[in-house]
């Protein structure tokens, strides 16, 4: 037994020393290795001098939080962002073209951060919004606009968010008109967070309205849905959204009673055209989506 154990230990040390030698030769230090006390001191000192532990810990935490499908691409993006951030910090202000590309890069980076967490993961989402905000506040020409992100960048970012959420430009335009600010204005953090959250929620909402249209068309998926049916369904949603202002719990109960399946069945049955299906006027998907989006947009408070 004794002999075997010592042989195994020897093998381990030998293997370690070769790895250490390789590392020293290539100078690469970013391998996921654990630092156990068995290693010689110079290596651990070298690694701790670089602050590699902190870097890797941050990368692993982010990876665990986001759980992307492609972890290697995610890690590559993460380290790429860190590298360009430290580069930009060192660089001074250049000419206009350089600044534009810099702005574009900052915008891309901010968008990357915002994509990491869904808006329902509230604390992670808020953290990412904070990081994106800090990134965008630093970008921009001198003299910097104090007090927030420049309105132009904010507007561009909202447009990109809506585009990524597969919301067509025409549908998103009324929403953006409500929450946008003038190009020269400075957007504070609260407004920034609200705008980003609204766009994220809106893209989910539009996606849901598409599946709603599909289920309304369900008896015959190829033909567009009856106009009266669509209007009945959207009407119940509007009723539920318009529920009077009483205590929150009472409001939720009342709204959920209005969109319960039995209520919907009644509304749809009364809206069905007596002549039979596919005889009345129809509503196509686009119109339905726009009507549903309008219900959402009227409840967004415009920026002032």
């Amino acid at each position, binding site marked *: 037994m004794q002999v075997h154990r010592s042989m195994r230990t020897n093998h381990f040390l030998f293997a370690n020393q070769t790895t250490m030698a390789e590392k020293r030769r290539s100078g690469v230090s970013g391998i996921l290795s654990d630092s156990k006390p068995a290693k010689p001191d110079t290596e651990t000192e070298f690694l701790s001098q670089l602050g590699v532990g902190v870097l890797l810990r941050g990368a692993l935490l982010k990876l665990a939080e986001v759980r992307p499908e492609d972890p290697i691409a995610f890690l590559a993006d993460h380290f790429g962002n860190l590298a360009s951030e430290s580069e930009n910090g060192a660089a001074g202000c250049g000419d206009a073209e350089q600044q534009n590309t810099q702005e574009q890069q900052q915008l891309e980076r901010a968008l990357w951060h915002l994509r990491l967490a869904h*808006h329902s993961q509230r604390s992670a989402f808020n953290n990412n919004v904070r990081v994106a905000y800090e990134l965008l506040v630093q970008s921009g020409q001198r003299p910097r606009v104090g007090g927030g992100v420049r309105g132009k960048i904010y507007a561009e970012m909202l447009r990109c968010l809506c585009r990524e959420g597969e919301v067509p430009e025409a549908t998103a335009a009324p929403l953006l008109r409500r929450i946008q600010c003038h190009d020269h204005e*400075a957007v504070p953090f609260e407004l920034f967070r609200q705008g980003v*959250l609204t766009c994220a929620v809106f893209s989910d909402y539009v996606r849901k309205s598409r599946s*709603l249209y599909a*289920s309304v068309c369900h008896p015959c998926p190829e033909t567009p849905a009856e106009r009266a*049916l669509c209007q009945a*369904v959207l009407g119940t949603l509007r009723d*539920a959204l318009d529920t009077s202002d009483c205590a929150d719990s009472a409001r939720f109960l009342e709204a959920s009673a209005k969109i319960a399946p*039995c209520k919907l069945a009644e509304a749809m049955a009364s809206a*069905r055209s007596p002549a039979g299906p596919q005889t009345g006027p129809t509503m196509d998907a686009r119109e339905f989506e726009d009507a549903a989006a309008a219900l959402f947009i009227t409840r967004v408070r415009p920026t002032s």
Partner: protein
Amino acid sequence: MTDSPAAFTVKSPVPLDFGKAVTDTSRPGVFVIDITFPHGQAVNIQEISFKNYYTAFLMVRMMMRDPSQEGSPKWFTCLRNHRLMRNPHTEQGSQDYYSLYRQQMLTAPDGVTLVRLILRQPSLAWLNFTLEEIKIHPYPSEQDSERAVPGWLSHLTPGDQPDLQDLPDPETVSSSLQQMWALTEVMQTHQTAAPIGRFDVDGCYDVTLLSYT
């Protein structure tokens, strides 16, 4: 639970004396408190609440306008010799809070214009006695919105199920609608009233600080 009390005026307690001898050292054992309502309005009383101060026995009389008879209002005794203190000589019950409900009264207190509280304290131990913090709570009216059952509650149980042929499935439609409603709710609850400060002049509107430069 009772509603907010009705407005009324309380006259100060008036002692009752017997005979013609009125001396400074007389200690009346009976006080009377009259309660009137403003503008002579008639009130339906649900409850009378007060804080006792060394009153032993209480009698409540009310002047009520009987709606069936057209004659003048008449006096009715609603509580006869109601004991507030278990032993008039001791402290027990002397400073307690009491409530008298309409169910305890001999006649239903409806259409009351005047309430007379007659306080008795036979013990010599307590020189002064009265009732404090008197509140009269009216009978709640029909239009009280907080007690009303909301309309939608009565429509919860579905009637006859309509014919669902050729109609989209209500369950899937309803679930999509619920999610859309919830998303709108999320957006609305996170609206902030933070202004962008479009019209701020360095954050202040003080006239003396505005200048042309």
